[in-house]
């Protein structure tokens, strides 16, 4: 087990290098002159300002050296400085991280609470009306853009339930109850889509396990269906689901960015989008890098969790 953990941690290194290199590249693909793009024409013509901007971004050095220098700064927690806010990028990120984290965790909880039980039910009752309707629900959930679900919640909330606030954010530690009841709407919009995928995945995973020999043996022993399902089948059916949930955290992050815009939540998504409007490139770059590394970490945790539950992984 410790060897597996070590191996997985070592594999994180190429991921960090890859993701950071991709984010680093972003700064180089801005078409045209970068200083003009960032500071406007008058600043770009000012030689002094020009050199200062290039030095701040490290653009006055050879490209590989730039990358190493930039990466070194990242490891020290220095993501550069925001053009607009003035302060360090990491300060802005950490300020907004808890908000996005709350949205992500709540969405994932809704998705799991909805997807796993419905998926199991659908597999057990395969071929019945229950199975059919939950599969239809899953198909619709997968096909409905989360920003459409979110917009519908906002629109119908505003028209028919004006007393229920759906927009904005209440800090969790200020008023936990109000915070959760406000955040539940965007979390629902985001969680429904992910839950639909989890439902589908759970269903096929359980179906596969139910066809295994050892499940047949358990049934032949005369165990009740409930015992077969909960003692024997679910244990191994849940393993691929944990892995998959890790992978879908990437999808969740993308969704959170859009839903923060829909629900006016001042999280990392809004930070990126307003930075795009203001051409605050260090903020965009820093947030994308931060979130991508976060996703890589969540996937790692899910994998370790699987290794903890599934004895077969240790041999790998």
């Amino acid at each position, binding site marked *: 087990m410790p060897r597996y953990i070590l191996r997985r941690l070592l594999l994180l290194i190429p991921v960090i290098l*890859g993701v950071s290199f991709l984010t680093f590249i972003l700064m180089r693909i*801005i078409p045209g002159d970068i200083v003009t793009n960032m500071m406007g024409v008058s600043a770009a013509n000012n030689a002094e300002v020009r050199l200062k901007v290039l030095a701040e971004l490290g653009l006055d050095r050879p490209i590989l050296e730039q990358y190493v220098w930039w990466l070194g700064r990242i490891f020290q927690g220095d993501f550069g400085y925001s053009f607009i806010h003035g302060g360090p990028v990491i300060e802005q990120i950490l300020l907004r991280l808890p908000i996005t984290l709350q949205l992500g965790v709540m969405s994932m909880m809704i998705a799991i609470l909805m997807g796993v039980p419905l998926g199991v039910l659908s597999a057990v009752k395969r071929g019945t009306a229950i199975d059919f309707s939950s599969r239809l629900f899953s198909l619709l959930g997968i096909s409905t853009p989360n920003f459409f679900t979110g917009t519908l919640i906002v629109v119908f909330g505003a028209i028919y339930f004006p007393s229920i606030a759906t927009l904005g954010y209440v800090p969790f530690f200020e008023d936990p109850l109000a915070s959760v009841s406000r955040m539940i709407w965007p979390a629902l919009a985001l969680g429904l889509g992910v839950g639909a995928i989890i439902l589908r995945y759970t269903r096929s995973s359980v179906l596969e396990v139910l066809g295994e020999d050892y499940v047949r043996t358990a049934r032949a022993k005369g165990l009740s269906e409930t015992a077969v399902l909960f003692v024997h089948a679910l244990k191994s059916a849940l393993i691929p689901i944990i892995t*998959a949930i890790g992978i879908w955290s990437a999808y969740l992050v*993308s969704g959170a960015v859009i839903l923060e815009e829909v629900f006016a939540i001042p999280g990392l998504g809004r930070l990126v989008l307003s930075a795009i409007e203001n051409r605050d490139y260090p903020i965009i770059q820093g947030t994308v890098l931060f979130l991508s590394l976060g996703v890589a970490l969540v996937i790692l945790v899910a994998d370790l969790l699987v290794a903890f539950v599934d004895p077969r992984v240790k041999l790998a």
Partner: protein
Amino acid sequence: MSAPAFDSPVAKSAGASFLRHVLRDPATLSGLLIASILVLVAIFAPYIAPYGANQQTGAMLATPSWEHPFGTNFQGRDLFSRVILGSRNSLSVAFPSVMLAVAIGLPIGLLVGYIGGRVDSFFLRIFDILFALPAILFAIALVAYLGPSLRNLILTIAILYIPRVAMVTRGPTLSVKTREFVLAATSFGSGSARILRKHILPNIMAPVLVESSLLLSEALLTEAALSFLGLGVQPPNPSWGVDLGKGRQFMELGAHQVIFPGLTIMIAVLGFNLLGDGLRDYFDPRIRKQR
């Protein structure tokens, strides 16, 4: 999550046999219908749309009626016409980006799978990294840096999907290259290029086709999401995402502004999802049996 093995070499009458499968399976049939209607609507859009995309109809925020089936928006533009004309923008982003991703991803996957060994594990690592990226977030960043335009939208989506196509090509290539008919061709002295083209490629097209259909649905979603955020198709050009996003401004004055563009996105995505699922069932009888 491994790609399914496709055991039967491609049948000669693949088209006819698929059609038979479609007629038996209502889900695939509806998927095929939705996708075909969508393409036809996009082709003949200017003849179908009763108004121009930016034509003032004189009625602002009109609710749906015979004259304006989807109502009008706050600028008095006919939403039905905008949805019809918007299909062109959505499809002209989705199709080229998926085709570009296939054009680049397929050869990569083919070569990586065929060469195998260290090259394979090296690329597998890279794909692993790319899979972990939050796709839409990266698309947002790419477009933000490149600037929003139809060309950049296509490029961005294509870049995101290249690893996906390469991945579904690589798996079957790995398994097909060890099959007897490939060994036989090798023993007859066929070169690698010929083996790849004549023997491997026809046998791996099925999973690529399935993935392409699913990617089309995702590309439609991504385009809509970016346009919704103001980073895709630029107003006043019609796009389902643009109209859904714009409709929020005066949403209290009529939910129809967001419902129709949103439903259109949903149905389009649903269509390509159903088609992809249907294709997968058709090509992989193992799954068909399981359902």
